[in-house]
Each structure stands twice: as C-alpha cells, then as structure tokens.
C-alpha cells in the first residue's frame, strides 16, 4: 500500500490540462502552408508518393498526404509544415490546402447533422474498426484514452461492442477481406450513428489507393461525419476533431 502511494506520488501530474489549447512538442508535422513563390511545379507534383499535390493553383490534399515532408525538403520556399494539429473536418473538400491561403481547418457547422449535438454532446461511445490499418492509427487511438490525453473527460470513449456504440471509427484503407466484417459491425451499431475516418489510409487509401486488394464501396454508400487527417492521426487531432463535431467548447 505504502509502495503504491509512493509510485503514485512519483508520477506527478501527467494529464494535459487543456486539450483544446495544448501545444505539441517538437517539429510535429501538421497543417502545411503553401507560399506563392515560383517553383518547378511539375517536379513538385511529381515528388509526392500519393499524388496529394496538384497544380493550378498548387494544392495539397491532406486526405491523401502521408505527411512525409518530401515536398518540404525539396521545395522549402514553397511548402512549409506548421505544428497545427487541427486536421479534422466534416467536409472532404476542406482538407485541401491551397497556395497563398493559410487558415485553420475547421468544421462546417451547417453540415453537422442536427441530432449529433443533442444526442452525443454529453457522451459519445465509439467502436473502432481496423480495416487494413497498419496499427499506427490504432496505437494513437488507444493513446487518446491514456492518462496523458484522457479523452474520457469529455465523455468520449471507445467501447468493446458495436451494440454499445454511437458510431464507428475506421482506420486503414479497407481491405477486401475486411469489407464484410466492417459492414456487419456498422449494421450492428444502433441508429442514429456516426462514421469517423481516422488517418490518410482510411480517407483516401493513402499509399494503397488503387490496390486490387481493397474494397472501398462502404465509403461510397454511407455518409461520413468526420475526417481526421494524419499518418497516423495525432491524439490531439482526433480528440479536438470529435469535440468540435459534438459542439464541446
């Protein structure tokens, strides 16, 4: 007993006091900024492993970006990655960053379904489905619940059964072999329910886009309530995105 108290004392305070304003340590790869500087556009578009960069105007689609920083390394005058971890939105279009425009990524409040604030604002239980995920987003989603991030303070939690859940969080590019289990899990979740896509692989297929081993039909047939970009998603990106969706201040 005495030892336990000693250990507890030695941990000090580990939780992040305000998740909505927390700063990330180091050179975290967050929302990029694209300057209007002139550069070899063709080479810039070519250097991206997932075709996330387009020309006229130069834009980066964070739903495809793997945050590898190759473009920043080769074109430092053109591309700069900030530490802004707010990479969540409910409109796919808003994940596209254009040259010369540097504004935070936000949700479109008009597109948030009405019942979400009222029903889930105080408590949201989520079921996670890894569908070809590489276990990086899965590790980070687990970290959302640890003593540092403590997502549970907002009443947001991951649960074991889809029957107890208010929605599902999908990671991974959705392999063919997981398409049916994903559908079964979604069907087992009682309505009304939400769908969150966590990570580049889930949003666009990432580096696996176009692989014949994928089956992404599920995404065409269902409404997506939240996109969280990242490779993997940072816990702060996920927690803040969900909190914004629920209308938590």
């Amino acid at each position, binding site marked *: 007993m005495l030892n336990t108290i000693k250990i507890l004392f030695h941990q000090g305070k580990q939780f992040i006091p305000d998740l909505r304003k927390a700063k990330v340590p180091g050179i975290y790869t967050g929302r990029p900024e694209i300057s209007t500087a002139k550069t070899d556009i063709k080479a810039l578009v070519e250097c991206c492993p997932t075709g996330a960069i387009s020309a006229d105007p130069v834009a980066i689609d964070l739903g495809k970006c793997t945050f590898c920083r190759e473009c920043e390394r080769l074109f430092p005058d053109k591309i700069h990655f900030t530490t802004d971890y707010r990479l969540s939105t409910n409109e796919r279009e808003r994940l596209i960053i254009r040259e010369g425009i540097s504004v935070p990524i936000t949700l479109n409040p008009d597109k948030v379904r009405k019942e979400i604030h009222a029903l889930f604002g105080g408590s949201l239980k989520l079921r*996670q489905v890894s569908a070809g995920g590489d276990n990086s987003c899965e590790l980070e989603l687990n970290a959302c619940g640890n003593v540092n991030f403590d997502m549970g303070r907002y009443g947001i939690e991951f649960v074991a059964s889809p029957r107890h859940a208010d929605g599902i969080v999908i990671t991974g590019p959705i392999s063919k072999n997981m398409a049916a289990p994903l559908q079964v899990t979604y069907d087992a979740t009682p309505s009304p329910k939400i769908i969150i896509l966590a990570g580049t692989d889930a949003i666009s297929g990432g580096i696996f886009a176009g692989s014949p081993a994928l089956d992404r039909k599920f995404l065409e047939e269902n409404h997506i309530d939240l996109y969280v970009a990242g490779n993997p998603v940072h816990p702060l990106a996920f927690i803040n995105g969900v909190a914004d969706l629920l209308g938590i201040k």
Partner: protein
Amino acid sequence: MSYITVNNQQSVPADTIPELGYPEFLELNISLVENHPERHCVLYFGYNYRKSIRLVCCIADDLLHNIMISSSVVKSDATLNSFSAKILSFEKFEREIHENFGIDFIDHPWLKPVRYPEEGSEYKLKMAEYPFFGIASEELHEVGVGPVHAGIIEPGHFRFVCNGEQILHLEIQLGYQHRGLEKLMLNKKKLIERTTLAESIAGDSVVGHTSAFAYLMESLGGIKQNDEILFSRTLAQEIERIAIHTGDLSAMCTDVAYQLGSSVFGRLRTPIINFFQEWCGNRLSKGLIRAGYNPYPFTKELADRLIAILDAFEPDFIEMNKEISTLPSMLSRFERTGMLKYEQLLEIGTVGMSARMNALERDIRASHPYGIYGTLNHAPVIKHHGDVFSRFQIRKEEVLQSIAYIREIVKQIPDSNTFKKAVITLKPESFVLSLTEGWRGEICHAAVTDSNGDFVIYKVKDPSFHNWLALGLAVRNNEISDFPICNKSFDLSYCGHDL
C-alpha cells in the same frame, strides 16, 4: 557447391545462386537445418522465372554469421514432396507458395490458405469457409472470436476448441489485413513510394521494416552507408524497442486488471514516442528513415534531450517493475501461463523475443550484425521459462539494455551530411536479403531484380509470420480466460503477417 554463402545485406548476381533438381534441393536444405539449432530458415519463397517457378531457400547460420542460399526451378503444376513433412518450420512458407503459385506439396500437413490474396490464388475458398480443425465430441465446444475484437486492435479470427474452461486447441485465421503490399512494391517505381510502403508494413515497427528496406535498396544500389546513417538507424531502432516494449508492459497490466501498472507504463511510453516527434515530426517515426541519406540530423541538443528523458524514465520504470515482482496476484497470472518449451520453439521456427523467452537465442543484432551493432557486442537477453512472465521480464530487461546502449552510442555523434535526396539505381539481375532485429524479432526483406534493374519480386517477412503458431500452441491447456494475456504477451502483428 550446392549453395552460395552471403552475408546479411550483401547483394549477389541472381545467377550465382546454384540451381538444383528439386529432390537435391529438398535434401540439402533439410540436412542444413536438421539437428542444427543454430540454423533456421529466414526465408523460403518462389517467383516467376522463365515460365516456371524458381524456389529460393535461405538458411541463416547464427554461429558463422552468414546465410546459405540455394534454389530450384519447378513447374507451377508440379507435385512435390514437402519440406514441412520433415521440418515443421517450413509449414507456412509452403502454404504461401501453394497459395501464390498453385504448387502442390503432397505430404504437407495441411495446405490451408494464408492471406486470401485478391489474385493469383489457387484457392477459391471464401474467408467464411476456412477449414478449421475441429474435434467432434459432445463434451467439447467451440468459441469463435473476431475478426473484429473488443479493443482498438487489428482484425483476425481465433477459433478455440474448449473442454469446459480449458483450451484444447486454438487455430488462428489471418488475411483480413491483406493490402497487396508486395505487388505494390513492384508496381510503384518511385523510391519515395516504395519507402512509404515499407513504412506502412507495420506501423508499430516502422524503424525495423523501413531500415530493412533501406539497407536492401542501398545494397542493390551499391551505396555505402555513412556513419551518420548507421548511427541514426541503430539509435532509432533502440528507441522504438523501448517505446513499444513499455507500451506492451502497460497492456499486459491492463489484461490482468492492474490499473496502476497500466497507467504508469502507459504514461512512461509517451515521452519516448514524443521524442521521435521532436526528432522527425512523427510519434511513430514515419519519415525518419530514408534510403541513401539521413533526412533528420541527430544533433547534440537532441542527444541531451534524449538523455534527460531517459534519466527521468529509468527510475520510474524500475520502481514499477520492482513493485510488480512483489505482487502475488500479478505473478500468479503471469507465471506458468502460456508456456512453450525450447523444443517447441525450435520446431516452429520461432524468432525474436518469443524465441529468447525459453533459451532459443535468435537475435539478428548478435548473429548477423548490421548498423553499428557490431561495435556494441550485443548479448541477447535470454529467459528460461517460456511463460508470460518470461515475456514480461524480457521486455523489462531489453528496455534497460536499450537505454544503456543509447547512453553509450550518443557519446559520439557522427557529423551530419546535408544530402536532401538519394538517387538509387538498382543493379540488374541481382539478389539481396536484408535482415534487421525489430522489437518483435527478425525482420526479413528480400528482392530479385531483372535485366533493367527492376524488381521481379519483393518479399517481406515479419517475425509474426512464424510466431503466430507459437501463440496457438502456448494457450493449449490454459484457461480460456488467460487467452488475452497470452495474446498480449506475444503482441504479434496482423498487418505485418497479411501484408
């Protein structure tokens, strides 16, 4: 000679690998492995070759520090005697070859599907029709779990045959995570695309897999790594080991409902992975390793910061471990649970920490050193009980060992170079095998190039490929309620297996 001998990460012309008739090929490789516990098969694979299939078998010798490679060319409609009938550890390799090329191994114990790939499969079976081993009896019942599990974890299906609470048999069906990665390695030609693929093989072993890939590319490109590259990859590998091992200790505490240990180890992992973010902008080190150059110089400031983090980490980590070793309620869950004998580990071909938990010394850092491991004189941590507690202790001791290595190597930080990009032209008609020791164990990448220097085949083998069978056998005669702790104590990769 009926085989050639190469070193880890050494590329050779593909036609120098001797071609044997299949019966000699079989006999040779069996004789190399049989009664030689210091040898094991690191990779056995096939690829399309002049309208036939060329089978290549790679046997590593831990004492001589080299790898013996031989090959045989067979027709895809061939009916062959199996290696597995004599040496069980070839079992999955042959199932994979059967699945990809349709070759029939007549005396293989059971040619079941491995991954259900989207094409090229001879199997017309659907995932739902997997032929599970069953025991017909009114006394027994079956329990099916997954593919979607009760946590934030990857998918796989576990089928138990139980007698009351006791597990008689567990069969693990995988393939749900199959993304077609090896094919994409061939189709995507750009280096950055392939690097990104390597980083996505298993997101918990980014350093292990990406450095195996980078060493392979450099070997095929004829590029000699500078000190900075060798240093940063070795350092990153040991940081990854500390981070994931600590996270696993937390998860093992969770699975026996010990909240304090779960929280303490959980929060101890945070500053370690945050350090990766300070170094390269990503908590799981994606982006840190690139073939041909080191994109993120390791500075004196980063070294001071890392040492400060470890100084704070170490006493709390040791204190928590000490407390656990005095708690009978923890020890009774860990000790003698999920045990495997040395002979079983050897028979399965187990690698990495899952082998070292019971006296089987398999550690690429010592047996086939790369990076700067040669200068560290690495002595693997070995345990002798093969139970959950052994796997717990191995993690604890390896974390402390890695901390000691880091303290040692950061005393001398090599000068940083300012390359921003590497251009790598692969040697034509070559073969290379690249081994690294990830935190789970031996990671193996291999490639063969054609006359244009393009990949004919790119093979990836995660340690989980062998070790899943170890989990299946470890839970026999345990209570089914001990399955979660057994599973977590191995912590195997689904996506690394399914590719």
